[in-house]
């Protein structure tokens, strides 16, 4: 087997054109910036029929040139991927092969976008996201990694087992053919091998699943804690607010990394501290949902009581399964009822991420509640005798959702980076875990000689966080237009 080149036979035709176009694009953009700085922008003219047009100054010619070269460039890049999907490694080289492996992701992305754009006027804020280019790019990047994670977990994308080592593949560059390949094996390490001769591509895909699972869930828990404490702090103000804000500041002032180190120290784990913290932090979603439903339905006991019983019973079961694990300090639930055990490492990661993120969310929610509680509709709710929790959860919270959704997206990004940091320090997750932080840490030792092992997960982390930030930007922009 020949080693694969990046673009394969297709590259022989297209690479020069692509490079030339990219250079032209770059030069044109530079020229545009120069002209703009010189103040030679064209004057916008209003036509009698109300339309606008610009006069034909050099700046405008350049602007349209940039536009068309940009379009051509995007078209070419797309061509590499499309040829790859159908031709595979034989036609498109490494890029083509990657693109072919990702086929389920492409299909899922296309379907998501087609359906969403088709019904965007009926989908509220989510639909409006498709009015904003920035938001759509961000959403596409995020969904790309979500789908990669999901299909990766279903073993649809990966080419090799992420944990198994193949002799002779140590630190091999991308596109190296598999040594000793048998019939039915995938013939290449598409993105090379790491220092333990494992397939980098498969590890990144598997790592996506770890990130996509933990980051949003941990952020969601942090939000539950922050909201459940922040709403009363802002609504009642006074002493409660002073105490809660003080505690929040205390946690924020504590060095995060030191906290993590403390939490994973065997002596601390042996005292059961992480388990107790989990027991406290994970009860907040229960309180939140319970209060939410009770406030809404307490006037109709016939609906309220069964609803609360079912929902709280189910959540309580999950909660107990979550915190109780055999061999730890908390082992209340009999094994036959225990739905699942969380590995100790993941629990620590979860607890620490929730613990450090909740105070920030608390402060945002508190500020929003302080502002919204002065509105007339809150006064109207008070004058008709609504309880404080109804007002907090049904009158204040829904109207604070704009900033909270934006912050949620940003915070998933932070959490992802935090997970990477934790993995990088070797905290929490097991050493062979394919998550991106651990992989970057593994790869950094030989960074100057074989950069690909660290670079690939780093790029993955970068694109996901970038996507989340763009998505937050798009959501903010669109929610302000309401």
């Amino acid at each position: 087997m020949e080693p694969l080149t990046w673009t394969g036979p297709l590259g022989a035709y297209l690479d020069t054109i692509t490079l030339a176009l990219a250079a032209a694009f770059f030069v044109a953009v530079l020229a545009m910036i120069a002209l703009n700085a010189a103040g030679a922008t064209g004057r916008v003219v209003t036509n009698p029929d109300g339309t606008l047009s610009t006069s034909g100054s050099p700046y405008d010619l350049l602007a349209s040139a940039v536009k068309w070269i940009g379009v051509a460039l995007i078209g070419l890049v797309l061509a590499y991927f499309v040829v790859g999907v159908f031709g595979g490694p034989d036609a498109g080289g490494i890029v083509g092969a990657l693109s072919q492996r990702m086929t389920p992701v492409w299909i899922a992305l296309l379907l998501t976008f087609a359906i969403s754009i088709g019904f965007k006027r009926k989908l509220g804020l989510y639909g409006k996201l498709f009015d904003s280019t920035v938001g759509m790019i961000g959403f596409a990047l995020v969904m790309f990694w979500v789908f990669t994670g999901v299909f990766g977990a279903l073993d649809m994308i990966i080419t090799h087992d992420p944990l198994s080592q193949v002799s002779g593949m140590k630190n091999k560059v991308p596109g190296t053919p598999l040594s000793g390949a048998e019939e039915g094996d995938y013939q290449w390490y598409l993105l090379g091998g790491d220092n333990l001769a494992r397939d980098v591509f498969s590890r990144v895909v598997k790592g996506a699943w770890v990130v996509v699972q933990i980051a949003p869930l941990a952020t969601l828990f942090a939000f539950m804690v922050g909201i459940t404490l922040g709403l009363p702090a802002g609504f009642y103000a006074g002493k409660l607010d002073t105490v809660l804000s003080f505690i929040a500041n205390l946690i924020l002032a504590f060095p995060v990394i030191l906290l993590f180190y403390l939490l994973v120290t065997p002596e601390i784990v042996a005292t059961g501290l992480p388990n107790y913290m989990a027991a406290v932090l994970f009860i907040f979603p229960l309180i939140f949902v319970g209060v939410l439903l009770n406030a809404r339905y307490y006037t109709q006991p016939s609906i309220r009581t069964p609803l609360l019983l079912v929902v709280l019973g189910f959540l309580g079961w999950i909660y107990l399964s979550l915190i109780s694990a055999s061999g730890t300090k908390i082992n209340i639930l009999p094994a036959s009822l225990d739905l699942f055990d969380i590995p100790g490492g993941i629990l620590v990661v979860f607890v620490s991420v929730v613990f450090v993120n909740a105070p920030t969310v608390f402060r945002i929610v508190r500020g929003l509640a302080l502002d919204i509680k002065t509105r007339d509709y809150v006064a109207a709710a008070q004058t008709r005798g609504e309880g404080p929790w109804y007002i907090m959860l049904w009158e204040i919270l829904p109207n604070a959702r704009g900033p909270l959704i934006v912050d949620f997206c940003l915070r998933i990004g932070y959490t992802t980076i935090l997970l990477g940091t934790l993995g990088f320090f070797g905290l929490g997750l097991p050493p062979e875990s394919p998550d991106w932080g651990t992989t970057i840490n593994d790869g950094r030792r030989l960074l100057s000689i074989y950069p690909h092992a660290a670079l690939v997960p780093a790029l993955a982390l970068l694109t996901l966080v970038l996507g989340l930030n763009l998505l937050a930007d798009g959501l903010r922009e669109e929610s302000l237009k309401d």
Partner: protein
Amino acid sequence: MAKSDYDGPILEIDKLSISFFTRLREIPAVMDFSVTVQPGEAVGLVGESGCGKSTVALGVMQDLGKNGRIVGGTIKFKGRDLSEMSQEELRDIRGSEIAMIYQEPMASLNPAMKIGKQLMEVPMIHQGMGEKEAYDRALQVVTDVKLPDPKRILDAYPHQLSGGQQQRIVIAMALMSEPSLLILDEPTTALDVTVEAAVVELVKDLGKKYGTSMLFISHNLGLVLETCDRICVMYSGEAVERGSIQDVFNKMQHPYTQALFRSIPLPGADKNSRPLIAIPGNFPLPHERPQGCNFGPRCDYFEAGRCDHGDITMSPVAGDDRHHTRCLRFEEIDWDAPPAIGDAKERSEPGQVVLKMDNLKKYYEVAASALFGGGEKKVVKANETLSFEARESETLAIVGESGCGKSTFAKVLMGLETATDGTITLDNNSIEDIPIEARDTKTIADVQMVFQNPFDTLNPSMTVGRQIIRALEIFKVGKNERERHQRMLELLDLVKLPRAFADRMPRQLSGGQKQRVGIARAFAGDARIVVADEPVSALDVSVQAAVTDLLMEIQREQKTTLLFISHDLSIVRYLSDRVMVMYLGHVVELGSTDQVFAPPYHPYTEALLSAVPIADTSVEKKHIVLEGDIPSAMNPPPGCPFQTRCRWKSEVADGLCEKEVPPVRQVADGHQIKCHLSSEALDRMEAVIKLAAE
């Protein structure tokens, strides 16, 4: 720029059209708008919100933002076309030749800069004046705008001044470079009535003194009558009528102008015999304007096939000076025909007393330092010895300016606060000590409230129907979801909203419609006492009448007691049976509407009556301008609360006003005044408002 001698019109706007461009469409904000401002002339620009009057002002300043553009016509300032000037030339003109005064004074001042510095900047930048000269000039102008102790003011930061003082500073800043044209965009909307009167007075005097031309933008016809020489009425982006004040007010030639005048409460209007006539329908959205006449669908004189066909241009009215109207039929319409009056409504007789307040007091303790809780505690006396009764199906108006304690009173009545002292009796039960959590459902449902700000009164993330159903759930109305849904639909009928609105979100409703939903929600539990906190003051004039009428109608049907909190005396005179005037927590006057609106007055009532602008040229008003601002409730003056601003103080011997709070005196049956003035002095008072014709 040297100020050239020029004696033509200061501002000529000719067939101006301004559009805003969004991603979806072009939105025409102003169309075919022409107006001329002569030197020394004050022109009023009147219209409802969204009619494009502020856009015209921004167009004159050439400050339309990124997506606004002048798509036709010209704006000439002293004969020069503003749209052909470069940015540098425009910068020279703005602030020096054309100055603008905005609605919100605090937003127009830089909070981090001392007043003196902000004022001195103007001549230093535009005329290159030296620092010393600029300071002298600033001192001179601050003295001109009648601010006390100008030197101290120049050394103060904006937040150290009251709203009225801030607006005077903004006016002073506009006058620093002696502009030829002053644009005032709702300059007094954020101020209290008595302060507004003083500021308007000031603007008028200064206009005369400096010979400045003014473009006065307002939604208040009365204010325009008091300040302007000429008026231009706008509707939906177009000027519909323009002419001199006398012509437009007395011989209006456009159906919209006429409808506008018929929908505002003028002296003589009465809720039973001569009710207001609301303009039917809604203001068209800019991209949904009808063909032909924009006012067509709401017009009484609409003629299909003619009014909805093609563009309509301004045509001059024969015999009048520069009086134009945008109406095809103005020569055919009999403008003097009296409006078709619906059936005169039966005057409802007040029933027995349902609510009684006796010596109600509400004090707040404010810690001097909030952080450590230590230090001296100050007491704010928000309500002081409030006593009155309210009867069934009676409208009691509570009148006063901001800080007079009317909102505190409402809070105590609703149970959001408990009283410090005194009693509130509702149907023989004392409720002053029962906070809202402890009140039973019946009491809560009986006392409900309608709020001031329509954009704030509904929860933006719940459908209209859901919000009303929630109120029904809380008030335990209806046995199941279906009954409550049915009742909710009936409530929508009650406030004359289509039933389809149940599934709408509040943002899809106009201000007036939201206020109607607010009323429906208040009546969900068959409320017997409704506190209406300025329910119409944030609405447009044409909508105000409709909402007021709705309230009156529901009151008549349900025999509700309405406590109508307002600062607008015209509407109070129109709809209330009895009036209570409050000042700094004290009830200074209480009596039937006729008694309060006729002498003898409490000196504060007198000033309040004089301050309210009335859009009727036949009304003669006595001119009383109060000095100074309302004292802070934290630090009330000793003795009579009103003594610091009272013009009758000298009539009372021994400085009694400064020593003792005056006793409540019965001057007639059911008419009480809290004043030291002798009966003779009270008898000498003249009526403030006189109808010249009658």
